[in-house]
Each structure stands twice: as structure tokens, then as C-alpha cells.
């Protein structure tokens, strides 16, 4: 049988999912192999689609991979040696950043060190100004720059010049000359990575691309070889924007992989929502050390530009994810004002929660869940045995100091972690003009279904979806991910003066750059003089006035006002996608039916309604049905939780 596979590498576990031609889903989990993530990828495939059993066995024809390689190399600062060519007079952009300090009140706090050493920045004597060249790039300058660059013996070169979003002739000329001088030398031009105004963000993004690319190429080559050896196909890779790219393509867009993992989860959540006809949702993916909040509108993950990864601005399109340091391993403690606090410090995988019995003595959120009976002793991933006494002792230690009971302290720890997560959910929604009360909450990851009802209560939401395969939803998202290619261009035009021909040509020019069955365009628009743009969906057939009207409506919806001011576009983006694999979410007729007595969902048939408070043990997570909530099984697997009555 031919199957499509998704493999998601996380900090502790590597999750695998296969989907067969009928759309049926199978899942599996192995320990991650941080020294070479590829070993775990091959092992996960072996679990979910054993290669040896060729008779009845599976032929993996499509493999999509979610990787933390880029995130890790940015965090650990283990990327390539980059030489940066920048416009003379503006060579310190990476050090100057945006001149705000790292912390408002901690005066010694330093920003992360730039990815390029000061001595590795080469000044280019050229200058564009808006609409014109002020200093031409002479061949003498080109030769001097080539000499300077080669003398530094870089692994890769990034060329990022002022105003190149408008015209990148100078960047391309330098790249050409560098490659002519040393053909094996890789050169990244910033305008090719991100063709948008704002020099710091564009330069930093291009540098991140250069910094990551050689490592990503090496990783993907190694992974490809391993997979070939195991008789598996070449992998495609999930991008931050929630679409997959072939390994070859991904290797040239390394910076687009920075949020590869979290994007998979949100794509999976969107597919689940579409299958039950729910359009708008907030998502919460809770793991051991952090929680990721996301937003799905009209069945599609919200994709936008910008954001930091490990302190590095990467202004490329990405699925909206807001990460907070609150997860199962977050530690409870008492501050010098006598208040109970939770996180940001985490017990991590080692020693982990006290309940893991690996030497942890401080209480974690997981310990609090165990103390309150929200998770059972058998309820943890990958067969980790839990020690309730150790968890109780850890919570008791701080409860005594607070003069409170163990139960109240445990509940307060959950409340505090929930408040942090609720704040992240509120930021992702309200910042985009979305009222959380109009959304469902999709909760996944090992901890998501445990916190979901309380988070929904905090935000006034009344519906929670615990999706099928909640513990491995990211891998599901990978297995089904569409192929997605993007093209973008700077389009600084006043819309009231935009000729229809110019508009159509711009749309067509982008469409010609990328292939795909489904095409969509979006335009970033603002009032003349504004600094932040709103993104509106557009088509090549739109008349300029229609664009203005759509922007005006969107501005009113989000900010509550409009201005008697001309409207200008900033950038046009195009996405060409080819649909991915169709998953059929369904309860598994081969699996055991729901065990009503012990409230264990094995993934088989279920027909029961549960009123909170109580837990349901899922195949790879535990759901907590809080008081006032009622749970009904979904025909597609997983559960729907609804608020019974107004609070």
C-alpha cells in the first residue's frame, strides 16, 4: 500500500504519522536523536510504516518533515560564517538594530550578538535613494568588494543594500561578480529573500538565510542519504508558512524553516476544523517547556510576515504563532513579595517534573495536574511512570510556605500558567481584530487538552475542540500539508492612481514565477503615512477602487475608524499551492470502543456524554473536562467540549 508520511522532530519525541490511500491515519512515537535528527526520523518511519514487511507493508511515497534544525542553530549560534556586503555608511545595521534596549529596566541586559562579526561586514561604495541612484556601482568598486570578500574566506556571502527592495540591480551585479570570481561560493541577495522596505529587518532576514543555509543543506543531504539507504523517498520540508517545499527548494530557503514544527500543528488543526465545519478558531499547543498560540480564520491558518526567532528578526511569511514559556515542566516558586509564581524556568526533560522520579524536587505544572487527579498515573506519553507521592511532596513544599493547602496551591499553579497562556491567545486574536468569543479553541500537544476548558473560560469562549491525534497533531499536519510556493514584490503605489494595467501586470508577473494548482494574491495596504499595513485578499480582476473599499472596511473592522487619507499599497504577495494529501478523520473501527468506566478513549467508537469535572484519557494525551463543561465524542475522533451554562 502506498502511504503519505509526516515526521515531526521535537525536543523529546519524534512523532510519525502515515495516511493510507483511503485517508486512514496511523501514528507512532520514538525518542528524538538531537545529535542527528535524521536517525530519529528514520526510526519513526520504521515504527509507523515498517519497510521490511514488504508483502503487506507500506511504500512511503511522500514524506514531509518538520525540523527544528534552523531554530536550534539560531538559538545555539552554530550557523555558517557569513560575510555581509552592505551600503557604505550603513554597515552597522545589525549592531544598531532598532536602538531600543533589550530590557526596559535591566540596564545591563544585552541584545543577542549579531550573526555576522563586525569585521566580516564589507562596505560597498554605492547608494540608491528613493527612485534614483545617488552613487552608481562602478566596476572598480565591484572588484574591490570581491577582493575584500574573498580575503575573508567566507562560507557564504549575503549582499544587502539600501533601497534594493525598489531595484536590486546593484545586489545582483555584486552576486554575479562574486560567483564569477569563485564559482562554488554561495551568494544570497537580500531583495531575493525579502523584497520589502525597512533595511534592518530585510538585512537581518537575509543574514539569517545565509547563516542557516549551509547547515540546512548539509542536514538535508545527510537525511536524504539515510532515507535513501532505508529505501525511503526524499523528504519535503514544512516551512514556517504552513506549506511544504521539496528538500532542494527548502535548501535555498533555509530561513523559511525557522518555525517548521509549530506550523505543522496549526495546519493539522485547520484540517480537523474543516472536517467538522468550524471556520474560526484559536489554537493552543502545549508541550513541556512552552505553549504556542495560533489563529485559524475561515479554515486556514493565519499567515503573516514578521517576528523574531531566537532574537533574530525573520520578516518572512509565517503561520502566526505566539510562544510563551509555560508548559508541563514550568516550575512553581514564591517571589520576594510573597506571591506564588509559575515559570518561566522549566524543569525541562531532565530532571523533569518531580513525578518523573528523575531527581526533580520542585513542583511543576504536571505535578499540579497529577496532585489534582487531572492526569492518571498511566496517563503520560511513551510509558513514563508517574510518582504521585513525589508530585504531592513537591507541591506540599511550597504550599507550607504559602500557608495554604496542597490542593489549593496546585490549583493556583494551574491558574497562573493558564493566565500566561490566555494572554498569548488574547494577543494573537485581539491584535488582529478578532474577538476570541467568536472562535472555538483547538487544544493539542501533550498538555493542550488539560488546559483547554480553563483557557476558554478565561477568554469567554464556549467551544473547545480536542482533535483526534491531539498528541501528534503536528505530524498529522505535515503528512497532509499542501505544497506551497510564494512570490512577493514591493508595490509602493497610491491606489487612487494605480492604473488597471499596472495592477494586472503585477499579479501576472508574480503568477509566472511559481507553479501551483490553486492561486491566491494578497496585498499589504495602509493609509499613506501609516507604518503598519493590513493584508487584504485580492484577485487580478479587482478594480483599484475595490481594493480601496476592501482596505477601508478592514481598517474600520480592526481599529474602529477610517481616515480621509489616500490609500497606498506596499507589497503584493502571491501563493501558488498544490493540495496535499486528504486525511479522513474518523474513529478507528479496529480500535477498542470507549471504556466508559475508566473514561479511556482508545480511538474506537464512542457514544457518550460526559459532564465535568472529570478526565478522559486519550490515546496520546489527557483531556480535562472542567466543571460546567460537557464533552461529547466527535465522529472524526477526539472530543468537543461545550460550556453548559453561563457563568
Amino acid at each position: 500500500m502506498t502511504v503519505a508520511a509526516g515526521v515531526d522532530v521535537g525536543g523529546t519525541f519524534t512523532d510519525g504519522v502515515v495516511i493510507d490511500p483511503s485517508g486512514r491515519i496511523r501514528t507512532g512515537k520514538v525518542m528524538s536523536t538531537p545529535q542527528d535528527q535524521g536517525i530519529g526520523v528514520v526510526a519513526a518511519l520504521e515504527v509507523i510504516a515498517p519497510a521490511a514487511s514488504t508483502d503487506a507493508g507500506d511504500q512511503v511515497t511522500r514524506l514531509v518533515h518538520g525540523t527544528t534544525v534552523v531554530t536550534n542553530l539560531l538559538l545555539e549560534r552554530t550557523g555558517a560564517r557569513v560575510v555581509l556586503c552592505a551600503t557604505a555608511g550603513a554597515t552597522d545595521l545589525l549592531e544598531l538594530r532598532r536602538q531600543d534596549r533589550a530590557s526596559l529596566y535591566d540596564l545591563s541586559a544585552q541584545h543577542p550578538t549579531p550573526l555576522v562579526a563586525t569585521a566580516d561586514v564589507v562596505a560597498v561604495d554605492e547608494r540608491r535613494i528613493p527612485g534614483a541612484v545617488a552613487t552608481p556601482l562602478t566596476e572598480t568598486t565591484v572588484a574591490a568588494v570581491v577582493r575584500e570578500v574573498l580575503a575573508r574566506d567566507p562560507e557564504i556571502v549575503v549582499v544587502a543594500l539600501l533601497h534594493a527592495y525598489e531595484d536590486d540591480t546593484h545586489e545582483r551585479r555584486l552576486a554575479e561578480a562574486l560567483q564569477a570570481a569563485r564559482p562554488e561560493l554561495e551568494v544570497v541577495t537580500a531583495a531575493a529573500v525579502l523584497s520589502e522596505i525597512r533595511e534592518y529587518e530585510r538585512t537581518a532576514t537575509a543574514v539569517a538565510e545565509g547563516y542557516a543555509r549551509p547547515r540546512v543543506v548539509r542536514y538535508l543531504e545527510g537525511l536524504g542519504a539515510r532515507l535513501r539507504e532505508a529505501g525511503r523517498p526524499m523528504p519535503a520540508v514544512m516551512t514556517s508558512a504552513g506549506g511544504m517545499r521539496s528538500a532542494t527548494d527548502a535548501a535555498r530557503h533555509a530561513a523559511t524553516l525557522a518555525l517548521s514544527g509549530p506550523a505543522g500543528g496549526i495546519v493539522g488543526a485547520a484540517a480537523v476544523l474543516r472536517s467538522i465545519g468550524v471556520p474560526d478558531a484559536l489554537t493552543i499547543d502545549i508541550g513541556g517547556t512552552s505553549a504556542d498560540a495560533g489563529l485559524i480564520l475561515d479554515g486556514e491558518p493565519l499567515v503573516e510576515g514578521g517576528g523574531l526567532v531566537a532574537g533574530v528578526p525573520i520578516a518572512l511569511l509565517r503561520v502566526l504563532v505566539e510562544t510563551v514559556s509555560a508548559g508541563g515542566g514550568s516550575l512553581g516558586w514564591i517571589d520576594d513579595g510573597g506571591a506564588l509564581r509559575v515559570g518561566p524556568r522549566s524543569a525541562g526533560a531532565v530532571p523533569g517534573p518531580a513525578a518523573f522520579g528523575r531527581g526533580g524536587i520542585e513542583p511543576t505544572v504536571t505535578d499540579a495536574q497529577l496532585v489534582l487527579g487531572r492526569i492518571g498515573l498511566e496517563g503520560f506519553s511513551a510509558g513514563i511512570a508517574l510518582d504521585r507521592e513525589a508530585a504531592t511532596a513537591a507541591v506540599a513544599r511550597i504550599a507550607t510556605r504559602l500557608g495554604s493547602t496542597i490542593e489549593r496551591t496546585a490549583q493556583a499553579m494551574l491558574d497562573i500558567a493558564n493566565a500566561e497562556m490566555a494572554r498569548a491567545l488574547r494577543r494573537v486574536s485581539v491584535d488582529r481584530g478578532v474577538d476570541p468569543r467568536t472562535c472555538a479553541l483547538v487544544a493539542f500537544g501533550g498538555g493542550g487538552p488539560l488546559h483547554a476548558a480553563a483557557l476558554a473560560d478565561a477568554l469567554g469562549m464556549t467551544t473547545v475542540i480536542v482533535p483526534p491525534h491531539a498528541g501528534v497533531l503536528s505530524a498529522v499536519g505535515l503528512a497532509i500539508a499542501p505544497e506551497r510556493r510564494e512570490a512577493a514584490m514591493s508595490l509602493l503605489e497610491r491606489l487612487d492612481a494605480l492604473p488597471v494595467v499596472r495592477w494586472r501586470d503585477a499579479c501576472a508577473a508574480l503568477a509566472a514565477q511559481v507553479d501551483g494548482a490553486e492561486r491566491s494574491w494578497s496585498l499589504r495596504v495602509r493609509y499613506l503615512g501609516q507604518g503598519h499595513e493590513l493584508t487584504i485578499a485580492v484577485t487580478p480582476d479587482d478594480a483599484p477602487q475595490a481594493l480601496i473599499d476592501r482596505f477601508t472596511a478592514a481598517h474600520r473592522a480592526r481599529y474602529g475608524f477610517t481616515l480621509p487619507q489616500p490609500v497606498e499599497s506596499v507589497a503584493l504577495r502571491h501563493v501558488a499551492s498544490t493540495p496535499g494529501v486528504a486525511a479522513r478523520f474518523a474513529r478507528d473501527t479496529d480500535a477498542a470502543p470507549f471504556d466508559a468506566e475508566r473514561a479511556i478513549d482508545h480511538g474506537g467508537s464512542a457514544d457518550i456524554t460526559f459532564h465535568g469535572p472529570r478526565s478522559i484519557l486519550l490515546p496520546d494525551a489527557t483531556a480535562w473536562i472542567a466543571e460546567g463543561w460537557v464533552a461529547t465524542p466527535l465522529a472524526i475522533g477526539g472530543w468537543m467540549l461545550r460550556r453548559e451554562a453561563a457563568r
Partner: protein
Amino acid sequence: MTPHTVHTDSAVLDPLEIAVWASTMAMIAEEMGAVLIRGALSPNIRERRDASCALFDAEGEMVAQAAHIPVHLGALPEAVRAVRACAPDPGDVFLLNSPWHGGSHLPDLTMVEAIADGDRVAGYAVVRAHHADVGGMSPGSMPQGATELVQEGLILPPVRLERAGIPDDDLLGLILANVRTPDERRGDLAAQRAACAAGAAGWRTLLARHGRERIAGVVQGLVRYAERRATARLQALDGARGTAEDVLEGDGISEALIPLRLALRIQGGQLHLDFTGTAPMVPGNVNCPIQVTRAAALFVLRSLLDDDVPTNAGIARPITIVTPEDCCIAARSPAAVAAGNVEMSQRITDLLFAALADAGVEVPAQGQGTMNNITFGGAGWTFYETLGGGQGASAHGSGPDAVHVGMSNTRNTPIESLERAYPIIIDRYAVRRGSGGGGIHRGGDGVVRAYRVLAPCTVTVLTERRARAPRGAAGGGDGLAGENRLNDAPLPAKCRRVLTTGDVVELRTPGGGGHGVTEPGSPTDPH
């Protein structure tokens, strides 16, 4: 902290709940900030984020402030006090900028919404934003040489922009008729209005869900908690006493030094600040109202606390301030104040840190001590920005390079945005290498920024630390003083010049002081 105190406070707010509520309140202020920045028109608000948002309860206690700009920190309560003195009706929206009525300097337009909850005022949503022009004698309303407030722009005591939700278009028209860039002002005010509305909505939701009494208890509990954390830190420094002196390098009219003096005492969990000996009000516009002085004191205390202490009225409680009757840091009408908010506030901060150091409290060496204000104005346009510089080194490490220090934390204007919007080319924007002071830990380096103008215009420069460099600490070297230049000739620290096409103004901002004596063979930071 006595067990008795814990008991009393827990009657109001359980220690188990503090973190949850602190987070809930901060969320509303953050939301206001997000709405403001995304909706604003002017680069000064949207790019540089020269703005602050805060939420107050019905009694005028600050519940939460989004952390944007320190100089706004302690100053917003005064604005709310001024509005409350006008007996606001529910739903009234005020605008003010008068330093004698809760304002700071005139470009900071503060909007205050008296949040309606039925027929009562349930609290206040406050948004302060620095507008690029509010009229007055020079474009940008940050004049050099002003001697009266009235020269610095349109003065607004608290006035009602909306009465119970009905906008007063006549009043808005009057305001817009008195500024140089009315369309931009209209847009920024609309964004401020939207941000206030977001704060009001968030506050009303809380009240509806938890009830008035409960929320009142929560606010009291959070305020006491912040106070407790501030007091605990001060108690750890009990008995500390220190004095310090510093000067401001002229008031923009004369270059006569303006002395500042402080005697600091920490006792019984209180921070006593006595500014006796500080100069009287000066003719030029470096004076500041007392709320700016209070903001500086609050900022310095805040920097001694952990980052996570909630920002509310409680932090201010342990601070007492004494100033002479006639004093440049407790200015009264009709003093000019435009530069006081940005430059005097920095000097007060330096003075406070110096007195703490004298008292034996570990603090960083001096940072750049100025905001390097520069304003260009031509036909139909004004552009204002401030520049970062070196931060002082500390016992823990070197000082950050090229950042805003002290009372500012605005971002830079991207070169590409600036050049598209104004007839200015940035010839050079660089780290000013070697400007940080030496020592075991080096002071941060300043910034060099050179502006070439493409059209006739005026430039106004308001800067400090041009003659007296930021000082090192614990034997570390001083940073380099700043320099201003016009076409490569020196330019005074505070001045206004008429420019012709092609002129180049260059600011070189000060480096921070170093920390620790470097002995032969001892390690220093790599730099």
C-alpha cells in the same frame, strides 16, 4: 515583612492569585498599546513607539501600564488627577498636554477616557503619545530658545473631546487649526481614541465578569503587592545615604551650567530624595514639572527591582521627594519645558544613580545621559527623532552599544522609511567605535548619524553631555562626550539653524562610562 502584613493583604488578595491578576491587568494595557501602534500615522508613534498606555481605577489608582517609555511612567497619574478635578461624566474623553495639569511637555498629547459603566465612571483609560507637531514657534514643537510655555505650542488643559460619547468636532477643528500637520494629527488622535476604547472595553468586561467590589479588592491587592516588593528591596538597602551633584549644560538661551543636587536616604523601606540646592527655574526650556522628576525617581527604583514586578501605583508609594520652592525640576507656569521632559529627566536619572552609587548601592556607570533630540522642519513637513548612545558598564558586564538609556526607549526611524517620507538622506548611520569608556567592563559605544537635507529647512538640536562626558564607575574610564556638527564645523549642544539644500548635520552621541580599574594583565571585555 511581618506575618501581620501578609495576613492583612491576603484578606484583600490571596498570594495564590496575584500572578493571575497581574497578568490579566497587564493584558489590557498591552492591548491598548497594540491598537495604538498599529493604527497611528506618524513615524514617531508607529515606528519609534514614543507612547504609553495605562489603565486606572475609579479612584485614580494606576492599575497597569504597558512598558513603553520610562518618562511616562510616573507621570500618567497626574493626568488622571487633572481630569478627575474636572468632574468627568461617564464616557467623557479628555485631551490634555499642559504641564501644569498633568502633562509633561506640549508634544505629549494625553487622552483620557472616563470609562462609562452604566451611569458611573468605572475607571480611566489613558494614552499618551508624542505628536510630531503641536504648533508654537518652531516646527516639531521642540524649540530651542523658548522662554515661555506659550511659545512651545498649543496649550491644552484637560478639555472634553467627547461628551458622553459625542465628539466635539469644533474643538478638534480648533486643535487641528493650530498645528502644522493636521492630517497626521487627526490620524494619530484617532488611533489614540481607538486605544482608549480598547482599554475601556477590557476594563468593563472585567467588571461585568467579576463585579465591582471584587475588582476593587484585586486592584488594592495588586497595588499593595507592588508596593511590598519595592519596599522589600529598599529594606535590603536600609540605612543607605548618598549625595550627588551634576549639571545641565545650559538652557538653550545661555550656556551657563545649571547645577542639580541630591541627598538620598533609604530608611524604613522608604526612598527619601531631597533636591535642595538644585537650581531655580531657568529662562530656557529645560525646566520640567515635578511629575517628570517623579517619573525619573520611579524609573530608578524600578530598575532596582526585578523585571516582573507589576507596574502600578504601588511602586511609587515608598518614594518621597523634596524640592526647593523655585526649582527647575518642579517648574511652574509660565516656564518653558519642552526639553525638560527629554533632557532634564535624563540628568535627574544620572543624579539618582550617582547618589545610589555614593550610598554604596551597586548601579551601572553613567550612560549617554541625553536623548539627542533632532527636529527638521520645512514647507509642509516636520520630522523629529531621538538617538541612542552608549549605556554604562556594570559589575556584571559591558554596557550595551547604541541603545536608548534612562528615560527613553524609542526605536529608530528606518533609513528607508525616512528617506521616502522626507527630503533627507542619511549619509551615515554607524556605531561610534571606541566612544565607550575603558575598564574591566567597557562602556557602550554611541552612535553617529549624518543627515543631508535635500530642501531648505530648519534644524533644531537639543542635546546634552556635549562638554561633560558620562562618567565611569569603580575606576572605569569616562565615555566620550557627544559632538554635533554642521558641514563638518562644530555646532552647539542646543541650537536652531536654517539649512540650505546639501547641508549635512551630524550627531555623534556619547559613549557610556566603563566599570572597574584595568590593571596590567587583567582581562577586559573583548570589544
